[in-house]
């Protein structure tokens, strides 16, 4: 297994997709050029697995996936960047809503959208949408962040063939980073929460693609003898995220790290759930307070781990 983030994610995803039957695998430049920045390499067709290079009509791509799903077939759509999926919001909200209200005679097929979140601003303001959670919130579609080898293997294996729709979101900023294997110690049954560490003094909960910052904070905690639990949260409707919430209620100290620009973030829902049970839990939310830049910029989300650690110790 390659340790390069993008290559590793491609291998995990393509290995699974290549086992799927009754499936349409499609995307713009799916099988040529850069293979959608490497996302769609190594895919192979089969007797009931069609690979299609498709035109530039993202709204239609989304509708096609739902049509296949309601026909009991599977769809895997590769999309270069999450911003393009804004064009499919009508389908995510209206079409998916209708499908969920309908009782079909046969099981629904699966519809998986594999895309990258351009979590930097160098492509310009129209190419830096990070709010997958907002699309998920308005539609009820699940959104999973693929961050480390362990979570990506688990999520892709368990979710890609499930009836219904979900996003698998990669981080563009991490594309060429080296990956290390981080063990999973626990996970929610719906994969809404993945737990990587168990500690006694503070609960660190990461939203979006902020797990790397959470790991840095855990490293600092370890160095100073502070036991920290570490979680990553995905968007799943009616999430079964008790393992993270109960951990926060136990440690009574909660750090939420959120790399999105969203002001309607999943962070606040999680925090509300925790505080509803115990308003005495101390918390801090580290988020991108600068807001979304309207100009080309680095848009790097930085976490001052020393300051956050000082808060933990206080």
């Amino acid at each position: 297994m390659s340790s390069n983030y993008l290559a590793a994610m491609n291998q995990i995803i393509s290995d699974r997709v290549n086992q799927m039957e009754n499936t349409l695998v499609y995307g713009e430049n799916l099988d040529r050029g850069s293979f959608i920045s490497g996302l769609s390499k190594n895919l192979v067709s089969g007797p009931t697995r069609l690979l299609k290079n498709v035109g530039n009509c993202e709204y239609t791509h989304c509708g096609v996936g739902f049509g296949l799903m309601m026909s009991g077939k599977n769809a895997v759509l590769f999309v270069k960047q999450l911003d393009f999926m804004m064009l499919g919001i009508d389908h995510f909200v209206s079409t998916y809503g209708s499908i969920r209200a309908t009782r079909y005679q046969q099981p629904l097929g699966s519809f998986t959208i594999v895309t990258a979140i351009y979590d930097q601003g160098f492509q310009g303001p129209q190419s830096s949408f990070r709010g997958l959670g907002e699309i998920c919130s308005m539609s009820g579609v699940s959104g999973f962040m693929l961050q480390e080898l362990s979570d990506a293997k688990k999520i892709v294996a368990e979710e890609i063939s499930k009836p219904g729709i979900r996003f698998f979101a990669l981080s563009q900023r991490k594309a060429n980073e080296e990956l290390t294997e981080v063990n999973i110690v626990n996970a929610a049954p719906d994969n809404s929460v993945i737990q990587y560490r168990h500690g006694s003094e503070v609960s660190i909960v990461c939203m979006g693609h902020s797990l790397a910052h959470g790991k840095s904070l855990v490293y600092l905690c370890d160095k100073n003898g502070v036991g920290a639990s570490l979680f990553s949260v995905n968007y799943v409707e009616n999430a079964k995220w008790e393992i993270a919430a109960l951990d926060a209620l136990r440690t009574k100290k909660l750090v939420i790290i959120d790399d999105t620009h969203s002001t309607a973030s999943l962070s606040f829902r999680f925090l509300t759930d925790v505080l509803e049970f115990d308003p005495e839990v101390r918390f801090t939310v580290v988020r991108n307070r600068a807001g979304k830049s309207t100009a080309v910029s680095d848009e790097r989300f930085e976490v001052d781990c020393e300051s956050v650690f000082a808060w933990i110790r206080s």
Partner: protein
Amino acid sequence: MENCELIALKLRLWQMEINEDLKKKRFKVPVHLGLGTEALVVAIASVIHSGDSLLLTHRNAAFNLVLAEDPSAVVREYDGSDDGLAFGQLGSMNLVNPRSGVVYSSSILANNISVACGCAFGHRISQSQNFSVVLTGDGAMEEGAFYEGLVFAKSHQLPLVIVVDNNDYSMASTTSERRCEIDLSMFCKSIGVNYLQLSDNDVQTYVTVFESLRDAVTSASSPAVVEVKTTLLNQHAGPTPGWPSDPMKVEISHGLVIEETVSDPIFVLREKYGIKNFSKFENELGSTKLNRDVR
């Protein structure tokens, strides 16, 4: 009278019965009848076989009435009853009945074309002889999704029939009041999609055309567009008299013909069989009325 023609008469009766309920404001959900579309509806329903996919718009009442095993279940659905056609979950505008092939209905104009492309791709993956039919209209032709959908269907040679129900109206605006003319035949030609137009409202002719289309689309695995000129004989959503300046008064007691022109497919039937024979057929329909008891 041919069976398809009898079904058209029944459909007219059922829609007029529901129209009586609309006059009394029985339903909380907005019901979009298709009085005047019976020839088209019956023809499409006649070519939907097991495994085919039919994708409709919010104006799906007539299709669901014709295709349901129990058409009274449509009325129960509008009432929100759990023994309605969709268990009281979908109401009117999104009403589907997968058991009969109606897999999707949407009120978002042109939204259903891309979904139909997905269903048609499903037929391709199954390597079946099934096809998909999607209903759309002259209003949806203005949407970008309409263009995208046709190009996608042609690009991937999908077994799909796109039916444009052209009644000239988008709610209260006629085509000329809201946009320039679109020559659909030229557009289809430009992307290599077969196009044909229907307008004479003869049920049997329409059935024959759609049977041929089904064969052509499934054997060639290539989409086709049918533009059907219709006149909607009821309001956009609600009981007659119609809109926006339509003086028609639709009453069951006046008989099944609403408009004495070829715009009304039931008038076309009456002309074909003569008033005397037609009255006999009308009288025989009594036993096929919907059960519209309010429970």
